[in-house]
Structure formats: structure tokens, C-alpha cells
């Protein structure tokens, strides 16, 4: 097939389609750093559990598992929201202060006698509005996500302080109390809610058109636009999802603390991003799972819990979390 074409053409693109035969597939996988990178969170969690259980046998007691799961619930919900944002190659730095704003909105509505359901809706709406604002500024205002959400981080926590006049509102409500301590077997209600959120998020991301468009928007905005996907609308949608989930988290937070505080909750911000990174979601967008960040959130919670059980000073906990996150980020370099 002599074609005159080829003379000035660049060399053929490298072929990377080597597929190992079926029986060697697993052996090859185990040698592949990418495989380990993808499952970093799960492997890390298993290792942590083994180590902590060896050092302190109460670690895997029913009571401790129960309390770890409850402690992880809010983080799981925030991490799921953060996953949607990061999958589009964005980041929501305001997610924790949005939750604070939601909690304060809840407290104020409740203190004014609005009742539980209305107060909960106010919390979700307030947080949702922050999300819509984030998304709109990023998509329509063409401002970097980092700057926008850094601004709303400050604005939302400031607004929370103003609304609450800097004071916490104590909330005594039998339903909220039941929400924080009740549950089914070892699964507290917050855990069950978090699980429902995670399953729903998984279905949305992988079994709806919207989910595919989220992945496409993060993977290649140009290709998505060329195929007629409105990446701006997708961006607004994911930040709104993050906001609404922060609102849901705020209700669980109020239930857990028994008060609506205008506190900063910075640890939740860092941990939500950390959980997502641990879960193998690319910060460059386009590839993500829900299981990964959920396991990441469990790992971070288990880490803090285990260190506490071992009597390690609280001061070492942020250090440990930081080291784990940076190691996880290093692992993602080897992702395929």
C-alpha cells in the first residue's frame, strides 16, 4: 500500500495497547503501581485496622466501631459533595464554612420557633445558596474555583458569626437527640444517612447522563463542549450538590453537638479534600469514584480514633493526617 502521504507525516503515535493474557492479569496487576494507587485508601484502612487492633484490642470492639462510624458520617457526606466538585477538576474550599452557616441558620430558625422540619429546610437552603453562588461565579464569572471558594469560605463563616452574634444556640430536641444516638444495630442514624447519600451519589455519577457529563466536564471540557454539554451548568450543579450536602451535614452536626455554633470547622474542610485524594480521585478531574472517598473518610476517622485510643497526644493527630494525605497524593502520581 504505497501512499505518497506519509513522507512528511510525524511518526505513528506510540501504541500502548499491550494487554496481558488473562491468567497473568492478576500477577501483572499486583506489580503495577497504578493498581496500588487506585486502592490506596482500602489498603491503608486495612493496614491501620490491623496495626491499631494489635496495639489495642478495644479498637475493633462493637462500641468503638459504632462510635467511629458515627464520627465518620458527616465527613463522608462532605467528602461525597467534594468528590462531585473535584471530579469536574474544581475544588470547594468553602464546604466546611458552608456547613457552619447551615448550622447557624438551623439554630436561628429553631430559636425563632420555626420547628424542626422548617429549620432543617432552612439549613439546607442556606447552604445550597452558597453552592449555587460558588458555581455561578465560577461558571459565569470565569473566576478560578480556588479564589471563589476561598472568598465564600470567609464570607460564609463571617455571615454565620453575624447571624449568631458570635454565640452558640443550644438546641434541645428529642428528635435530634434520637438522631444522634439512635440507629439500627451498630449503625447510628447519621451513618445510615451517610450510606444512603453515598449510594445515591454512586448511582448519580455512574448511572445517569448527568454523572457521565460530570466526568466528561472534568476529563475534557473542550470535548464536552464540542459534544453539546453545557459545562457551565454542570459546574453550577456540582457546587450546588456540595452546598446541599454541606447543609445536610450541618443538621447532623447540630444533632451531634446539641447546639448550633458559628465555629470554623476547618478540620472538616481539610479532611473532606483529604478523603477525596485518599480515595484516588484525580485532582485534575475526569476520574473519580464514590467508594474511594468514603473509604478515605473512614480511614481518616479510624486514624484519629486509633491514635486517641493509644493515648497519643491530640497534637500529633493533624500531623499524622497530613502525612497520610501527602503519601496518598504521591501514590496518585502512579495512577494509570
Amino acid at each position, binding site marked *: *500500500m504505497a*501512499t*505518497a*502521504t*506519509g513522507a512528511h*507525516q*510525524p*511518526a*505513528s*503515535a*506510540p*501504541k*500502548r*495497547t499491550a*494487554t496481558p493474557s488473562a491468567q497473568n492479569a492478576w500477577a501483572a496487576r499486583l506489580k503495577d503501581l497504578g493498581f496500588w494507587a487506585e486502592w490506596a485508601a482500602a489498603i491503608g484502612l486495612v493496614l491501620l485496622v490491623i496495626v491499631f487492633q494489635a496495639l489495642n484490642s478495644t479498637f475493633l470492639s462493637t462500641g468503638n466501631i459504632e462510635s467511629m462510624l458515627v464520627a465518620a458520617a458527616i465527613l463522608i457526606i462532605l467528602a461525597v459533595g467534594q468528590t462531585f466538585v473535584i471530579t469536574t477538576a474544581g475544588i470547594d474550599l468553602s464546604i466546611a464554612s458552608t456547613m457552619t452557616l447551615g448550622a447557624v441558620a438551623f439554630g436561628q430558625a429553631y430559636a425563632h420557633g420555626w420547628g424542626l422540619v422548617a429549620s432543617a429546610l432552612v439549613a439546607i437552603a442556606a447552604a445550597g445558596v452558597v453552592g449555587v453562588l460558588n458555581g455561578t461565579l465560577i461558571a459565569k464569572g470565569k473566576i478560578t474555583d480556588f479564589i471563589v471558594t476561598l472568598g465564600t469560605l470567609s464570607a460564609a463563616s463571617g455571615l454565620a458569626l453575624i447571624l449568631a452574634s458570635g454565640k452558640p444556640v443550644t438546641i434541645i430536641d428529642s428528635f435530634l437527640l434520637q438522631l444522634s444516638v439512635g440507629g439500627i444495630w451498630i449503625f447510628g442514624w447519621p451513618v445510615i444517612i451517610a450510606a444512603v447519600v453515598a449510594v445515591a451519589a454512586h*448511582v448519580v455519577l*455512574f*448511572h*445517569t*447522563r448527568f*454523572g*457521565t*457529563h460530570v*466526568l*466528561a466536564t*472534568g*476529563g*475534557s471540557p*473542550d*470535548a*464536552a463542549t*464540542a*459534544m*453539546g*454539554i453545557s459545562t457551565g451548568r454542570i459546574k453550577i450543579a456540582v457546587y450546588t450538590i456540595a452546598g446541599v450536602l454541606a447543609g445536610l451535614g450541618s443538621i447532623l452536626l447540630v444533632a451531634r453537638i446539641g447546639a448550633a455554633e458559628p465555629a470554623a470547622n476547618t478540620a472538616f474542610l481539610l479532611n473532606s479534600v483529604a478523603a477525596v485524594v485518599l480515595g484516588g480521585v484525580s485532582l485534575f478531574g*475526569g*476520574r473519580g469514584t464514590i467508594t474511594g472517598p468514603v473509604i478515605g473518610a473512614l480511614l481518616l476517622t479510624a486514624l484519629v480514633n486509633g491514635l486517641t485510643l493509644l493515648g497519643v497526644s491530640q497534637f500529633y493527630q493533624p500531623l499524622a493526617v497530613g502525612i497520610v494525605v501527602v503519601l496518598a497524593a504521591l501514590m496518585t502520581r502512579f495512577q*494509570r
Partner: protein
Amino acid sequence: MTSPEPTATTLQTGSPLQTGDVLVDVEDVSLSFGSVRALVDVSLTIRQGEITALVGDNGAGKSTLVRCISGIHRPDSGHIVFDGTKTDFHSPEDARGAGIETVHQNLALVEDLTVWQNLFLNRELVRRFGPIAFLDRKRMQQRATEMVSTLAVNVPAVSSRVRRLSGGQRQAVSICRAAGFSSRLVIMDEPTAALGVQETAKVEELILRLRDEGHAVLLISHNFAQVMRLSDHVWVMRAGRCVGGRRTADTTGEEIVALITGAQAA
């Protein structure tokens, strides 16, 4: 170059147009960006069942014209008639709806999605359960396998990520996507620019097959040998104007080059 056996020349759309009838008629289209006159009174035709080549130097206005036809830009004046109807596309979606598909130079593939996800991007098949629509992954995978199996280029399983595909395979997937979904006109912007000799040959086979299946193809290429080999008609653009058109059989590469550079007037 062997072209595949000419198969049925009728499209599944049941077009009344026969091969050789005018499918697209660009009439006096002008478009300016600020003070830059990107297109000046461009008129040309694209015929059903033919490969029409659009050639010209960089900045001659080829891409701008293509963007007008595919609904990305709207002409300031003049109009584009598609299949007998004056078009008024407000977005590429409108053009796609009418049956105009574009294989973009960058291919518009999402590397982290699978072949089937890319083939059905923004045209996903769904199953409805009440108000919620779930992706019909199984049916999309099946149909994607059927679409890909007709290709001359060997594409690995449709469930593999595009990231793992070679340049020619990616081009094939992109062309496959444009050819599917009962498109009438497939626009290709430099389809073989990034490919090696063998892959170029295979992609050219694909383009010929598109024509034989009854699609009209608008081919933008800098490769004159390729234009002479593939096209039925050539339009030449220079400095925003369409300076001439020739039946490929009646012209030579030298004449086309002369038209492009302006050494010869149309």
C-alpha cells in the same frame, strides 16, 4: 488505495436526495470578528454522496466557514441552505440535530471515559423508571460494539478507556461517532494530520466508506496528495474568500496550489 465495494447508496434517513444533488448551499456568507473580515461573500456547494475538499492556507477562513456550517458561528450576512431549507443554527446542537456532524481536529474525545461512553457522549441511551432516567449501559455497549466492528481499524473492546488507544484508533472512534446517529454531512478537520502512514491509509478507507454509504463529507486537509486521492470536488479559499472550485478529476495539484497562493486567478 483500494476503496471498499460501493454498498447501498441510500441513507437510513430516507433522504430524497440522490448522489450528486446539492446538500449544502453556502450563499454569500460573510463574517467579521471586530475589524477582521474572516469570511467575505463565500459561496460554495457540497453534494450528497461526495467528498468535498476545502483547501487553503492557514488563516484563509476554512475553519471559520466550517464553524458557520456546524452552528458554532452565525454568519453576519448571507445564508446556508441545508437539504433545501435555510438554516438558522444557534448552537452545534442544532446542527447535529439537523444531521451535521463534525470530527474535530482535537477529536473531542474524553480520554478517561470508555470508547462506548465517548460514542454516546451527550446522546446516552436511558431507561426511565418514573421520573428518573438511568443509563442503559448494556444497550449502549452492545450498539457501540456494532458500530466499532464495522471499522477497518481494529479498536479494542469498547469498554477500554480512550487513553489506551493509539492515534488512528482514536480517529476511528471519532469518525465512527460522527458517522453514526444518521448524520447527513460529516465535516472532518485535518483527520490524518497526526497519524502515521498505515493509520492514515486506514482512516482514508473509512472516509471513502462514509461516502459510499451515502454521507456527504467535507474534508479540510493540507495534504494535497490526499485531497486529490479522496475528493470529488475541491474548493479553494484565500484571505476569507472562496476563490474557486474544481472537479477533482479535471484539475491537478499544481493548479490547486496556484489557486491557493494566488498565482492563478479562478
